[in-house]
């Protein structure tokens, strides 16, 4: 399945998907509400069969006031991949947990929560993954400020 075919298949799957520009691989945007159902559709579709969640991360678009969740799915049978994005409100980022769809999402979401502060609904064990439990703030946010962190003293 080439890029256009894959995109059209995915877009025909649900009207809630919209194509995403400026990516090097087929990408769609999905709404946050009902993300779990959409992902289940992608996983269980016979021609798509995205059974591996390779990447789950987030991007902090501070100017737009959004946090974009990025999921890159790979099919272990067809070897094609798809990027799914979901835009969250930056000031109150809450998203549904995908840990019921892919087991690994549980820990990837913990990492995103740790570094970006995205809260996941129905997550079995939502706590920080890499930093201490009492860490203040979420370091990968663009406006994260830390006294400990030093700026480069010269160029």
């Amino acid at each position, binding site marked *: 399945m080439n890029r256009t075919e894959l995109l059209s298949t995915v877009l025909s799957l649900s009207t809630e998907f919209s194509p995403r520009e400026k*990516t090097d691989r087929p990408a769609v945007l999905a709404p946050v509400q009902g993300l779990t159902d959409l992902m289940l559709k992608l996983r269980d579709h016979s021609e798509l069969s995205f059974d591996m969640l390779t*990447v789950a991360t987030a*991007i902090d678009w501070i100017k737009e006031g959004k946090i974009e969740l990025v999921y890159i799915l790979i099919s272990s049978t067809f070897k094609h991949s798809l990027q799914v994005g979901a835009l969250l409100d930056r000031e109150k980022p*809450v998203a549904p947990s995908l840990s019921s769809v892919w087991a690994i999402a549980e820990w990837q979401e913990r990492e995103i929560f740790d570094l970006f502060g995205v809260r996941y609904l129905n997550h079995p064990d939502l706590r920080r993954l890499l930093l201490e439990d009492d860490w203040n703030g*979420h370091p990968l946010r663009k406006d*994260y400020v830390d*006294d400990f962190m030093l700026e480069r003293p010269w160029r």
Partner: protein
Amino acid sequence: MEITGMTAATMSNTEVPVSSLDERIKFFQNEPQSALATQEYFVNMGPQHPSTHGVLRLVLKMDGETVREIIPVLGYVHRGMEKKAEYIGYRQQVHLTDRLDYLCALMNNWVMADAVERAMKIELNDRILTLRTIFAELQRIQSHQLWWGVFGMDLGAFTPFLYGFRDREKITAIFEDTMGARLTMNYIQPGGLMYDIHPEFPRKVKDFLKYFKPILNEYDELFTGNVIVHQRLKGIGILDGKTAISVGASGPVLRASGVSYDLRKSDPYGVYSKTQFEVPVGTTGDCWDRYIVRMQEMRESIRIVEQLIDNIPEGPTMVMKFGAKIRIPEGIYYNQMETARGILGVMLVADGTEKPYRLHFRTPNFNNLWSVISMAKGLRLADLVAILSSVDIVVPDIDR
């Protein structure tokens, strides 16, 4: 300390509850039902423990010798690499990847360099690609040699460690001639290679391959054939293909579970499409299969290097100017490759400036580690050590 985002006070007031490690441990705690019941206890394995390969901490709930629950606690080498990456240019990112999974530094360099090259749409000549492929395969052998040695050590045999390192040192010497460094090479740069290869390089590689082939059989005699090893590994830590896919395991861990998914075959990069090799696949997905898959991979890597080493094409080894600033057009780029431990992915979010807006490393060990949890429950402590070792964890790769 300045506080951004959610303060500690507001955190507890939000609708989505946040747990902590102590709560998690309490969650698994249960009192013995009667006076005769065994008392389960928690024990910290790590962060300083000889067999966690670095500073991984596992909180184990144990019943005597049996492991009931595993709570991995990460972040003991979380260096904030992804934050750091937002402050430095694309060329400098390569040296960060050295420190991800330091046992396959060259392959990590390649992923990063390739991601930048693809985003900039730079065409490389065959010489660069061939050399990169050779280096990657040599590094795969090197990484597996170290794994073999450490695996032996974790099972209690100290000698394999020494033999593995003895032969690893030979590849290290070859690398040092060309790259000037032993472990963190920073050699594969966006646009080519840092230097041309050492003139003696092909000969030395051929010498090494000639030396190493019989040594592999010796490894087999010393360790693979040993009846104690069979007893320790067979049927231990079974990871079925479905679970492996669902936790996103990759590399030898996934292939040992019977899923033939190797980016070198399914999505060839470098000059892999021009070479003949097989992807070893296991059947049951136990420790023994992971062991055998890795041993086979070393043989396949030798095959690949043998095919390439004799006819390295001519040409320049750098197609970009070193001083030139690298700017990547706006967009999200994701590039992945097969390192010795699995799929290493780099997600670049470029905003048109010299520095990435966001850089994310999808590291193989992160996913592989979680497969350990499903494997080791209900087995004994010694099995946990064997499983951890057979999955070949490198902790800085997980924590980044």
